[in-house]
Every structure is written in structure tokens, then in C-alpha cells.
């Protein structure tokens, strides 16, 4: 294993300030993506509150067609997934990849064009969802023309990342780079399947492609890019080398192989071939391998370092994100078992599960990366550590309130559904308290988003101009 040492050299725990004197990154693209993503996080957070309120007061804003539940929901989901999370993930890749390669981003011009295109797509999406221009596939609601835009933007993003990696100074590629590359490659095919291949199919065949996409949007887009972030920022924020390179390799290659098989588990017990359901269950359970490999690595890295969590907000977000990642990925395989599926499938449990993945795990990683990278991008210090702490606790408590009540409520709901003597409407009325708590938790989470967004804004406005000043600000640490 002669390479282990080489990798360690190229690997992150080189001190940031040392690197900075060595290399000045322009980072315009990263800033553009980062700031727009945080803006959408805030705006779409408001939409989230509106739809949560509609569960408690169904006629709230009910007579305005543009604001009906069925039009705001895709705005919420797509806005959070593509406007906030993916854009923030891309921002962090624009920040991380050049640093791990020891070179500048291949083309800032291309990057800026990508950022502009991305914003055009998101803003057009807002209009089209409010107008009800919806293709009718979950996660793939965007009208076709915008899908084409997304593909174009993705190719531009991919070209920039791959060219930067091709020009790299350090030969060995740290695990974050694999995940970045994996994300770009897999996403391309997953996205084409969910948004274009579906056009040529109908019925169950189309649903199967749709679920392949939906599942892998999380599994092969948000998971690998989220892990790319975690693998970079956990060692960075804690100033501790990654526990095991070999383990990260097992995690990566098993993820590459296993994830894509599991899309059909969204149709368990549904009108889809039995043998496909069986395959999907087997592979869903195998997902535990890549998950455990990554989580073990993160925990082992933190061994003896946990005290750092006390006053390091990035690490707080990162490590609670890891715990949520583990929990979500334990739930997922369990849902695919027939007995469990027969209770929780189609209930409110599922949004509880989905939010833990996308908010609890991957958004926490993205927020952590933002808190770490932002001051470095703008060559300043974070506006307020106290406010950052508030954002953490509000998002954590609000998030937990949301997840846990929906699990309990969803389980109870599924239990009631399985007794056909209970009229459906009674199962709706029974969930009212659950939805009220969900709305309350939503307000807490939104408070966290506001604290986060304000901190970002104040940091940027107070920035001392991105000079080369040798101010190795030991921020966020």
C-alpha cells in the first residue's frame, strides 16, 4: 500500500492558511451558487410553512388556484432539492475540488454562466409550478424545456469539475473527488432516465423508470455529493485526518454498485412484477454496507475529538448529519421489508423519513460546509457564532419534532388503514394533532433557516473584500 502515504499527503489536513498563501482561488462561481442557494432556502422555507399550514387549515389560501396545495407542493420539493440543496452542494464542489487538486477552477467564466443558467431554471420553475405546468412525475415535474436546461447546466458543471481534476497537481485523488465525479456521472444518467426516457413509455414501465430516478436522485445525487462534503469537511473542521482510506473505498464502490437496483421498492405491494420486488428488497437491505462503511469512518475519525463539537458549529451540523444519515439509511431498508412496508408505505411516516434524509442529513452537511467555506470565500470571519449555534439548535429541535411526530403519526395511520372497519375520514381526523405539531416544528426549522441566512448575509456584507491579505482567520473553529 505504497499509495496510502501519498494520499495522506494530498489529503486534506494540510492547514488552510498554508494553502492559501500558496494558491489564490477566485471562487466567483462558488460564491454565486452559495448565495443563490441560501436565498432559495429561505424563500422555499416560506412555501414549506404554507403547505404545512394547509394540513391544519385546508381552506387557507384555498380559493386562489396558484396557491393550492397541489401546486405549492412541487414548488416546495423542487425548490428545496434543486434551488437550495443541489445548488449549495455545487457551490461547495466549486470550492472543494480546486483545493483538493491544488489548481484553480478550470474556468470561472463557464462556472458563472452555469450559475446564471441555474438561477434562470429555478425562477422559471417557480412560475411554471404556480401556473400548474407540471409534467406529473414526482421530482421530474419541471416542463421539458427546463429539463433540457438542467442537462445543459449539468454538463457545464461536469466539464468544469472534470477539467479541474484532469489538470490536478496531486496525482492521488482524495475520496471527495471520487464522490464528486461519481455524482456527476451517475446524475447524468439518472436524470436522463427520469426526465427523458419516461417520455417514451407508459404505465408501469414508466413508473419503474420514474422510481429509478426518484430513488437515485437521493441515492446517487444527494448521497454521493453529500458524502463528498462530509469526507472533506469532517477532517477539515476537526483538523483530524480521515480514519481509513480503505474503508472509504469500500463505501464508494459498494454504493456505485448497489444503489441503482432499488428504485422499484417504491412500488412494493403495488402493480409491479413480484420478482422485481424481490430484487429490490434484497438490494435495499444491501444498502446497509455503503452506509455503514461511511458512517464508521466518520465516527472513527472523530474518536477522541468529540469535545470539539462543543464550540464548532460546522462539526455539530456534520456529526448530527451523520447520525441522521445512519438513521435514514437504516429506515430505508427496513421499509422495504414486506411487513413494515404494509404499515408505513403511503403514510405520513414517509415524509418524516424523506425529510430526515434531505434535511437532517444532506442539508446539515451543506450548511456545515457553508459555515466553514463562507468566511474563507469572503476572506473574513463569520458574523456570529452565537447565531450559528441558534441555527443549529432550531434546525435540530424543529427537525426532530418533525421527523418523530410524523413517524409516530404515520405508523398509527398505517395501523388504522389496515383495519378496513375504520372509515378513511376518521384516520384523517386522527392525524390532526400530528400535523399541528409538524407545523410548529416547521416554524422552529424556519427560525433556524432565518438565523442561518441572516448570518450568511451579514458575513458577506461585512466582508473585508476578498483580498489576498494574509489573515489566516481561524474562523468557525
Amino acid at each position, binding site marked *: 500500500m505504497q499509495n496510502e502515504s501519498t494520499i495522506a499527503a494530498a489529503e486534506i489536513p494540510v492547514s488552510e492558511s498554508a494553502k492559501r498563501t500558496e494558491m489564490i482561488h477566485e471562487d466567483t462561481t462558488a460564491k454565486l451558487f452559495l448565495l443563490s442557494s441560501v436565498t432559495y432556502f429561505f424563500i422555499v422555507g416560506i412555501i414549506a410553512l404554507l403547505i404545512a399550514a394547509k394540513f391544519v387549515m385546508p381552506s387557507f389560501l384555498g380559493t386562489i388556484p396558484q396557491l393550492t*396545495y397541489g401546486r405549492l407542493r412541487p414548488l416546495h420539493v423542487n425548490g428545496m432539492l434543486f434551488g437550495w440543496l443541489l445548488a449549495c452542494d455545487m457551490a461547495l464542489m466549486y470550492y472543494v475540488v480546486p483545493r483538493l487538486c491544488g489548481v484553480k477552477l478550470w474556468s470561472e467564466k463557464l462556472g458563472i454562466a452555469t450559475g446564471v443558467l441555474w438561477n434562470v431554471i429555478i425562477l422559471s420553475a417557480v412560475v411554471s409550478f404556480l401556473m400548474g405546468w407540471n409534467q406529473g*412525475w414526482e421530482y421530474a415535474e419541471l416542463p421539458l424545456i427546463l429539463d433540457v436546461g438542467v442537462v445543459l447546466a449539468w454538463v457545464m458543471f461536469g466539464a468544469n469539475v472534470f477539467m479541474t481534476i484532469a489538470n490536478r497537481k496531486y496525482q492521488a485523488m482524495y475520496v471527495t473527488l471520487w464522490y464528486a465525479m461519481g455524482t456527476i456521472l451517475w446524475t447524468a444518467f439518472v436524470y436522463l432516465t427520469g426526465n427523458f426516457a419516461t417520455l417514451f413509455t407508459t*404505465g408501469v414501465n414508466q413508473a419503474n423508470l420514474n422510481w429509478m430516478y426518484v430513488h437515485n436522485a437521493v441515492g446517487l445525487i444527494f448521497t454521493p455529493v453529500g458524502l463528498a462534503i462530509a469526507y472533506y469537511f469532517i477532517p477539515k473542521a476537526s483538523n483530524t485526518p480521515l480514519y481509513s482510506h480503505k474503508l472509504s473505498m469500500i463505501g464508494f464502490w459498494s454504493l456505485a454498485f448497489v444503489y*441503482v437496483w432499488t428504485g422499484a421498492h417504491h412500488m412494493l405491494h403495488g402493480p409491479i412484477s413480484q420478482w422485481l420486488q424481490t430484487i429490490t428488497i434484497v438490494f435495499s437491505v444491501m444498502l446497509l454496507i455503503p452506509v455503514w462503511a461511511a458512517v464508521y469512518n466518520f465516527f472513527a475519525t472523530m474518536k477522541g475529538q468529540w469535545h470539539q463539537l462543543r464550540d464548532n458549529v460546522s462539526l455539530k451540523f456534520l456529526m448530527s448529519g451523520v447520525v441522521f444519515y445512519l438513521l435514514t439509511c437504516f429506515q430505508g431498508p427496513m421499509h422495504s421489508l414486506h411487513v413494515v412496508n404494509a404499515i408505513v408505505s403511503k403514510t405520513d411516516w414517509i415524509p418524516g423519513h424523506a425529510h430526515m434524509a434531505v434535511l437532517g442529513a444532506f442539508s446539515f452537511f451543506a450548511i456545515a460546509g457553508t459555515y466553514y467555506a463562507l468566511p474563507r470565500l469572503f476572506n473574513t470571519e463569520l458574523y456570529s457564532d452565537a447565531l450559528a449555534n441558534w441555527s443549529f439548535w432550531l434546525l435540530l429541535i424543529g427537525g426532530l419534532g418533525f421527523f418523530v411526530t410524523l413517524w409516530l403519526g404515520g405508523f398509527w395511520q398505517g395501523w388504522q388503514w389496515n383495519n378496513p372497519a375504520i372509515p378513511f375520514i376518521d384516520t384523517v381526523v386522527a392525524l390532526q394533532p400530528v400535523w399541528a405539531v409538524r407545523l410548529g416544528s416547521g416554524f422552529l426549522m424556519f427560525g433556524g433557516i432565518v438565523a442561518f441566512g441572516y448570518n450568511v448575509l451579514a458575513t458577506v456584507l461585512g466582508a473585508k473584500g476578498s483580498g489576498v491579505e494574509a489573515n489566516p482567520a481561524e474562523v468557525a473553529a
Partner: protein
Amino acid sequence: MLQKADYNAAFFVAAALGLFFIGGLLTTVVPPLIDSSWSKPFENSDPANGPVGKLRQLNEQELQGRAIYVREGCWYCHTQQVRTILADTKRYGWRGVDAPISTPDEFVYDSPHMFGTKRTGPDLARVGGKYNDQWHRAHFRNPADLVPGSIMPPFPWIANNEAEFKAMVAYLQTLGRAKDWRPDNDYEK
């Protein structure tokens, strides 16, 4: 062997895509080739094999109704699948007759598919013929008036637009009707 991927980006790309495509192709391209019921419209004339009937394509009005169903996001709250779960067949049955389990051949003409993932409201796979126009009109105006405690949003702009309302209801009445499952033709128009 995969250690090579640490240093060689081209090798990395090939391996990452190769592993992905094994599962990708086997679970998307292969299943419809193996399972013909995914593409063969339902047709049965022998009561011994379960409900008789024949899947037909929707007419223009029904398609327009379906488009409204897509536009308003009804599918975020309603599924269209009677699953292989006993409670599903009982709950969505009618006067003691179990609802037939949904089979792939009933959905061959569906695009976009409307199977759904979330049941905030009841499953609609067999709702065709359950209620008449009048019920639907009142329900779309304000569901909670008709079903106290309902959290289905009001859709006055459908109820008050004659063409849209007729189209919407025409579509809903087709749901699950390829299989003639209620005895004595006991359906609302």
C-alpha cells in the same frame, strides 16, 4: 484492483459507470422485456379468471380531465393502486365486494402514470362509479362541507367551470372500470 482508480481518472470513470450500468440496465430495460403484462392492455372475457372487461383508451374529454388532475396535483394526495394487501381490497371495495387488486395491464395507456406515493386522501384506483356528478360538484366546492374533517382543498375553479368540471368527473368515472368488478352494474354514472 480498484486502487488504480485513485490515480487514474479514466479508469475511475469506466469502473463507476460500469458498476452502475449493471443494475441500471437490469432493473429498467430488462423487466418490460420479460413481463408482457406491462405493455399488454387488460382483457378478460372469462369470469372464471376474475372480473371481465377490456381496457380502453380515454376519450378527449376524459384526457382533458386527466390533465386537470395532473395540473392540480391531486396525485400528491391520492394514489391509484389497490395493493396486494387485504385491507386495501376491503377498504376500497363496495358493499362487501372486494376491490380487485390493481394489475399492470390496467395502466398500459397511462401517461404520466398516476400511481402516487402518498395517501393523504383515499386511494382512487376504483373510485370510478362510486359517486355521481352532484356529489363531485359539492365535493370540489368544499370537501369539508360534504365530509366533515376533510383536509382536501376546495377547488371552486373546477366546480364553477362547466367544461373543466365535466371533464374532471368524466375522468374520475373511468378509474378502475376496465375490470367490471361491481355486481349488477352497480355504478353511478
